[in-house]
């Protein structure tokens, strides 16, 4: 279990052709950092682990921000660990694009 390094996993995503486009997209985001904004104004940042048809999202090593994490006013995040966000509480989902990050 321990050798399941996220780096490896990101690239050996199942590329078999019978998977629908949406599934492939979702699969490509697995193990990436996601930032999820919730209906009550909190933002969670964590590793995308799982989702289903109702858009429930499970994030690993999840951290909770009460203020907008963009303005880095030094708000200490609260560590939640493994957290599930119910689909109907999700306002916005962003992912951490590391491939397009060569701009510096």
């Amino acid at each position, binding site marked *: 279990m321990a050798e399941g390094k996220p780096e490896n996993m990101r690239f050996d995503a199942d590329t078999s052709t019978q998977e629908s486009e949406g599934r492939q*997209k979702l699969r490509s985001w*697995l193990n990436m950092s996601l930032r999820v904004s919730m209906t009550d104004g909190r933002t969670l940042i964590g590793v995308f682990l*799982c989702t289903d048809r109702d858009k429930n999202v499970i994030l690993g090593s999840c951290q909770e921000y009460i203020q907008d994490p963009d303005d880095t006013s030094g708000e200490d995040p609260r560590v939640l*660990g493994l957290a599930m966000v119910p*689909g109907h*509480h999700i306002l916005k989902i962003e992912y951490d694009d590391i491939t397009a990050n060569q701009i510096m």
Partner: protein
Amino acid sequence: MICVASVEGSSPENLEVVPTPPPVVQHTQPEVRYNWKDITQDFLTSCEELELGELMHDANFGLFEAMSAIEMMDPKMDAGMLGNRGDREVLNFQQAIQRETVKLKDLTAPELIGIIDTMLSSMVTWLEGHSLAQTVFTCLYLHDPELIEDRCMRAVALGVLKLVDLIKNNVNRASVFEEEDFQTMTYGFKLAGNVTDVRVTGMLREVEDEINRKVKSTRCKQGEERDPQTELEHQQNVALQARMKFCRLLLMALIAFNKPQCSGVTDGKRLLIQAGELLEVMKKTIHHGAHPDETATPGKMIPYILCYFPIIMGFEPLVNQRLLPPTFPRYTKIIGREAAMEYFQGLLNRLGQVCEVVNIISIHTILDFFIEFSKASPCVLSRSLLQVLAVSTDRKVFGTLPFREALREAVRAFNYPPALVPRSYVFNNPQAKEYVDAFLSRAVRPFSNLLQIHGHNRARQRDKLGHILEDLSSLQDEADKVDAALHSMMIKVDPQRQHLACFGTWVLYHILRIMIQYLLSGLELELYSTHEYQYVFWYLYEFLYGWLLSTLSRAEAMYQEHDAYMEQQKGGSKKKSKKKKKGRPPSKEIVLGQAEQSLCGGYYKATQGFYLDERLKKPVFEFDNEQVRYEHRFAPFASIVTPPLVPYSQFQDMVALEKFSPPLQPADFYVQACKCFQQAKNIYESFPSQTKEVQTLCKVAKTNFVVVKLLLGGHKRESKSPPEWDFTEHNTFPIIRLT
């Protein structure tokens, strides 16, 4: 869980933006640069493609791992969501000082009274098993008393911290709590460790004197007209003074209890009585304190918190929210001020009772005291203090008498084994002495554990009683060996005297008591279904009480044998020994044991009648059967050799009625039950010391006697509805009610 760990491994460092290597020096917060891209729509539409119940996940993350995720926005799991309702900002002490939302000086009397009362309320809530962070430390003043300029507030803050520290230490020392009783986590808060106890009580007393002057100056003087303002001021000062003094006395009492060798108990008791008197004043003056202002910022306040927590100046219920683990229990409801005062009243009474223990000398009486005290399900603090006072210091009773010697005394008083009686051969023989000492040393651990068990809460007690039987089983083995060895030594010198089963009888006595207690506690804790009553009462009636009674009579016989021997040795002084015999404690125990045995017999016979009458029905088990239940109920008894576990087959034989001809009728059993209850009633009625317990049991026996008699007379005979077992009168022995 494994997966969670591996996920934790892929912390933000690993997912960091590649071109910027992490700055190694920065330990506090590794700079993480993200490049966020909005995928909301994409994500949501992609999800639509999944089938119902289909999960999109990695190979090493499955439904099992998903189960342990906390659910956001679920009020029970998501502690963080509460803080977000409304726009109220959560300020810590420093921030609150900067924004001037808390006063550091010149607090008014109503403010002080309100703060003290709320502190006491939160302290009670803590004592009831909630975390310090959510109770006592919601008071910002306690975070750093050094910053407080107001002398009164500062003294109280330090006093409360000291109290918390002392309570926590005592509870820890006694270690008779479980997670449901008490939270010891202090979350790194300082508990006024840099100030001595004497200094704190001194400070409290100084402030008290100061207030006392104000009380005097505003007091009604003869022939003087007073304006209502002065009168109010006077009352407020009286209220405040009472609170200050209460804190001081409670603190001093706890300090006194912690003096070595119980030397402070008398002082402590006196202080408790004084504190109790002040509580009366405090209860009457609650209204003088500042109360939460519910109209201040309507809509902005969080309604959720308002109904759970009284927010007044200096308190912030959410200030420690971040210290709590993610799934920590939602919101702690702080107990009301009146209720808190009531709690303290109860606490003082319980502590007063605890003080009595130091007047007891023998281990057996201490054990009885513990059992009796525990029956009222006392709070964790009183339970702990009882332990601390009586036994907890390095296995010495009351901090003076070594536990082993106390046990030696207990056995001697129980049945006078020759080995413990001076002038007998085995008493002086060094070899025999060695055996006895070794045995008593072995007994120290199980018996101090036994005492400790009775400090636990009722539900845990049952569990632990079941386990200690294993320890006692091996002690029993040991006792038999010692008895045999001593016997063979003795028989050589003095063929008339025996040393058989002396220590064995003593251990057996305790084992039987524990077994009975174990079964009875199941009734108290409402563990048994009504269809299980039959074998529980049968086991008690036919075996355990029978064994206990014969063990006690054997001890009595041994004692008499010893007496006769002593007489023979001395030749005269007959009078003295006769006098002794009368007040022997076992005889009282035998009588009470007989009464309880009869009660159990009554229930057992009655259930048998009910089964025949089809008032009680055995459930049709689909996935288990009665044997499984039976064996489970008596499982802890299996570790004991004497008395042996009675197998299920024996119970079946006993209740199988086919072998009787003519077949038995329900009435036959009701007659027997009637007799049993009557016997119990008679014993209780003629019992010399009519304690409350005896009176209650007498009432139970009497009522049951009448009920079964009515049943015999045909009352409600046709009804097939099951009888009700009413535990309101007594929590182990029910009153049977026909419906």
